[in-house]
């Protein structure tokens, strides 16, 4: 019995990470933490892609991951800036307080 991890091991880890991230997005109230959850979901996807790339001997997945990391970095910059701006205006970073679009 080989101890080398197979594709499904990676995928399970990836799924667990994704679920943890989703849970964070759905359950936490602080915007920063929600953001961290989002990043976690992105990286879960990255892990799955890299794993596919490794086991299929195809570099396409890795290329895609680079793009995702780049876009995620940009997105985080914008998102964090928004959160800072929001905090300055509202003195709060909690999602319950952000209901001004409600009728």
């Amino acid at each position, binding site marked *: 019995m080989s101890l080398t991890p197979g594709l499904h091991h990676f995928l399970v880890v990836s799924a667990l990470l994704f679920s943890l991230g*989703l849970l964070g*997005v*759905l*359950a936490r109230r602080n915007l920063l933490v929600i953001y961290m959850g989002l990043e976690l979901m992105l990286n879960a996807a990255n892990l799955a892609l890299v794993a596919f790339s490794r086991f299929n001997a195809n570099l396409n997945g890795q290329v895609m991951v680079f793009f995702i990391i780049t876009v995620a970095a940009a997105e985080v910059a914008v998102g964090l800036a928004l959160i800072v701006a929001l905090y300055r205006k509202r003195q709060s970073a909690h*999602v*319950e307080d*952000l*209901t*001004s*679009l*409600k*009728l």
Partner: protein
Amino acid sequence: MDVHAAHNAVTAAAPAFSSRPEDIAWFILLLPLLAAAGITLIVRRSNFLAATFSIAATVTAFVLSFVLFLMFGVGDAAAVTSPFAWLHAGELAVNLGVTVDKLSTLMLLVVTGVSALVQVYSVGYMHGDRSFPRFFIGLSLFTFSMLGIVLADNFVMMFLFWELVGVSSWLLIGFWYEKESAADAAKKAFLTNRLGDFGFLLGIIIIWAAAGTVNFAELSQKLGAHPDLLGSLASVAGLLVFMGAMGKSAQFPLHVWLPDAMEGPTPVSALIHAATMVAAGVYMLCRVFFLYQVETAWPAALAFFGSISALDIIGGIGAFTALLAALMAIQQNDIKRILAYSTLSQLGYMVMAVGCGGPDAAMYHLTTHAGFKALLFLGAGSVIHACHHEQDIWKMGGLRKLMPKTFLTFALGTAALAGLPPLSGFYSKDAVLLAALDNGHPVLFGLGVLIAAMTTFYMLRLVLVAFLGSGRSEAAGHAHESPGAMTWPLVILAVPSVMLAWVPLGDYLTHHFFTDHGHVHGHGSEVISFGATISAAFGLVNHILFEPFNHAPLPAFLGTGALIIGAWIAVTLYWNAERDPLPKLLGSFARGMRNRFYFDEIYEAIFIPLHDLVARLADWFDRWVVGGLAVRGAHGSTELLGRALRIVQSGNLQTYTFFFVAGVALVVLIALK
């Protein structure tokens, strides 16, 4: 005038034109529209330019019509049409096209000629009116609509212009809309016409459904090949189409709008009554006469009509209208109303002629009538103008010396209307009577003679009371002759009133209607050969002046006899009369005549409540079913749904995320299954 020689001369010089007759026709049609548009858009503020535009357009149209008449009216040229597709929906294909044949070119001349003179006259009559340009816009639009009816080559196009005539008549009758009676009269005319038009439209639909075409030429051809094409609906379709004519040509029971239309300015009355609106119905009947030449056939529900044909019913309605209107005319005191009822009566005459199978006689009478009735109306307008808008003939009198030109032309018009030989009215009336006699309608013939006597009577009553005797009011005493713009059209119109029948117009029309069918009807060829036996000159005079007496003495002599009797009674009763002796002689019958046999009152008692009931029902339906159920229902259910959906929008970011993720999960689940 020898028209055939003129024709030869024109054919020799004509090649420059003769290639595109339909273009000339289109141009004639569009000229008045251009004038109306030009006045509306450009010269609305200038009285002078408005009148110039309008008159120039109509006169040009008249000249072009004359060119067209010489080119195509006189010879045997076939109908020329130039259809281009206008509407194509399913199996219905409607082309816009023009018909240029004997019938339409003659009618073009009548319409543009009378319209041009009426417009010149209006410059004098409407002088000083603050809406002077608007009046000319209306006249131009009216002329355009009427020309459209004349030139239309299919039912749908004719119906379009038919409605346009309705609209423009509404504009003109209600020209003085500040006057409540004028506004009401305009509405009455429009609505009464709509009633007839409804039947007309139904008739068109039946014909289209049965024959698959609305084009006159195609329809005529198809009916010629298969006379049973319309099946059991043949007579019904004919009568429904006749309903359109009943509205426009004011036949009983839709005649009530016409006398009220007198509320419009007098030139409008002249135009409506002489050459345009009321002539449209008779013209249409003549145009689609082939529709009435098919076998009589009634659907089972109407089988009790048996062998009575649509034409018989039309003839009956025409004769009844003529009689009724003549009776009403006898006791009217308003100069314009007398003429209005006279128009009604003469229209009945024409419709009767169509009903007797003589569309040629009907068109003949229409043409001559257009001349002398326009003359009479314009003459009446001149009198009204001179008497400071006094319209009661019993307040006039003695105008003969004060307004010699008007009196002379008016007298000529009266003589023509009464049918004094050798004026034009005599010949056309004779043609109508002959059509009734020849085609086996002795009762209608008798009625025709009676009505001829009554026509002479009421017209002489009008002339004797208004023009002879002595002035009965101050206004009449200070009357003065009208300006030249008003008297010249009278003089010009007096010419065709007298001489129109001296050209072989009757033969011309007979030729148009009956040569193709191999059934040469009435006078025409035989008489020409009769004339040829004697010297040519004498033959021509004989042909022109005495033809009716030679060829068919009975209607000619009876017609003249009726004229003499009518005139004799009128002179006995009204010579120097100070007030009307008839009410004493006839009692309540005279009151009935004066009150138009209470038709308006009857209609008001029966149809107005009925109409109100329908209106109330419609209102209820609109208020509760359309407004309540449909409109409020739609908006209520939308609002309810909106309220329900609003709960979903909590404003909580994470709720949305949850729904989103749940949705994705659901989609993935379904996709993977």
